[in-house]
């Protein structure tokens, strides 16, 4: 890994599903190390398709994806394993993400797949759970946690792999306001590159200084989040809307 390589570098990425539906038409994105970026876009814009390209689950179109300087090459099994360590995806439904019988086993799943065992594995698990404040639920089954707790544990399962870039799919969906704020505090405290896919524009404004709008399979805008959110015409052109009462100008003053 070269020291100055960007965390994520996407060049000319295009992809059509096997049934012929074209989802991405040439996406170019570079995210530097330590940046926090929101990926905004209406339903069906290709956000999930883009995310699944980051760790090589979807592939076969044009263009290239590099993570920390390493190219995603689905044919090279060994580098793919390293890519999946570097890209930590937190999926939208924590019940999909947490599939093991206990929280501890679930958080250990990723690092154990990387070959870690014994005290090193223990350390990773307790470290990751500590970073999201969930160490005391380690021995409980995921289905007995609250939704907010499950989302935090889902973040820990990925942190345990010490990723280069943390990718969150709709992190604030279905959270009550308190869990939403707690998750924001946790995410702001993490020292990691962050890409957050969301419709929740105030959440993007709170967490990410920079935003991208993915619309119609291309990056339609790439600018400081508050600038994007102040541009009413741009937002409405891409089916994005601010919630009632949210004023980006006020957010800028309080930020």
């Amino acid at each position, binding site marked *: 890994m070269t020291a100055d390589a960007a965390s994520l570098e996407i060049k000319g990425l295009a992809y059509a599903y096997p049934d012929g539906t074209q989802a991405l038409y040439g996406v170019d994105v570079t995210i530097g190390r330590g940046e926090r970026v929101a990926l905004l876009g209406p339903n069906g814009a290709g956000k999930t398709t883009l995310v699944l390209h980051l760790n090589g689950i979807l592939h076969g179109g044009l263009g290239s994806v590099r993570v920390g300087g390493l190219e995603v090459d689905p044919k090279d099994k060994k580098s793919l394993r390293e890519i999946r360590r570097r890209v930590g995806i937190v*999926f939208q439904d924590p019940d999909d993400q947490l599939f093991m019988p206990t929280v501890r086993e679930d958080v250990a799943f990723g690092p154990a*797949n990387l070959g870690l065992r014994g005290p090193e594995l223990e350390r990773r698990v307790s470290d990751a759970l500590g970073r999201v404040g969930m160490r005391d639920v380690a021995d409980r089954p995921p289905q007995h946690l609250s939704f907010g707790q499950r989302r935090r544990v889902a973040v820990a399962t*990925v942190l345990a792999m010490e990723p280069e870039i943390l990718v969150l799919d709709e992190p604030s969906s279905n959270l009550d306001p308190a869990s939403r704020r707690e998750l924001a505090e946790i995410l702001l405290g993490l020292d990691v590159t962050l890409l957050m896919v969301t419709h929740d524009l105030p959440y993007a404004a709170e967490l990410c200084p920079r935003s991208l709008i993915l619309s119609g399979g291309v990056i339609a805008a790439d600018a400081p989040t508050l600038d994007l959110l102040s541009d009413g015409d741009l937002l409405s052109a891409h089916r994005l809307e601010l919630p009632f009462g949210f004023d980006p100008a006020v957010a800028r003053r309080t930020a």
Partner: protein
Amino acid sequence: MGAGHAHSLYLAGGTLVHRLPPQCKLVAVVAFVLAVVATPREEMWAFGLYAVLLAAVAGVARVPPGFVLRRMVVEVPFVAFALLLPFVARGPRVEVLGVALSESGAWSAWNILAKASLGAVAMIILAATTEPRALLLGLERLRMPALLTQIATFMLRYLDVIMGEMRRMRVARASRGFEARDVRDLAVLGRSIGALFLRSYERGERVYLAMVSRGYDGRMPVIGDGAATARQWTAAALLPAAAAVIAAASWILAP
């Protein structure tokens, strides 16, 4: 594990029986059941001794008799079948309270009743002292094919999730005035079950994506071997060894 919500068959505790590694208990129960099944049905005293053995194990494990008896209802279908046998079987008849019963039928009924009850009690004690998750770990350590234990592990994790979905679908049906009244309503229930299957199938795909994203390559990582010590095996062997002695004695003493 699973504080507060644990499985209804499980009785939390820290007794010697609880602490034995699950693989030892599994082998012990299977060996015990084999000894019971191998005992000639005419040697009634042997079955009495088996019952005493189980009572002793239950005593050490602090599993109250009422707990075991309530859970023995699973045996009811077999009991019903066994009780029919003396009336329907052929062969020489004996008079009991003025009713002619088939002698071989009566022995068969006794045979099924005694052996099934002893087996059921042994299983109930096993389940009461071993968490479902530990049972699966035990099976894994006994070299059960990994695919089977993985399926069972996922079932354990997702049973609550699927039941929750089923409950929500029922509420949604009832909220729109549906009540299952006669046979024709079965079509509606059938479609609900179909929808539930599809949802579970789609969830399976999403879970698989989440697993692959964290480096899954077809094998679950084995974390810690949890091998049992010779002393633990010896302790677990006490029950089946005693049962084997009784079974052997019953064959020697049999006419």
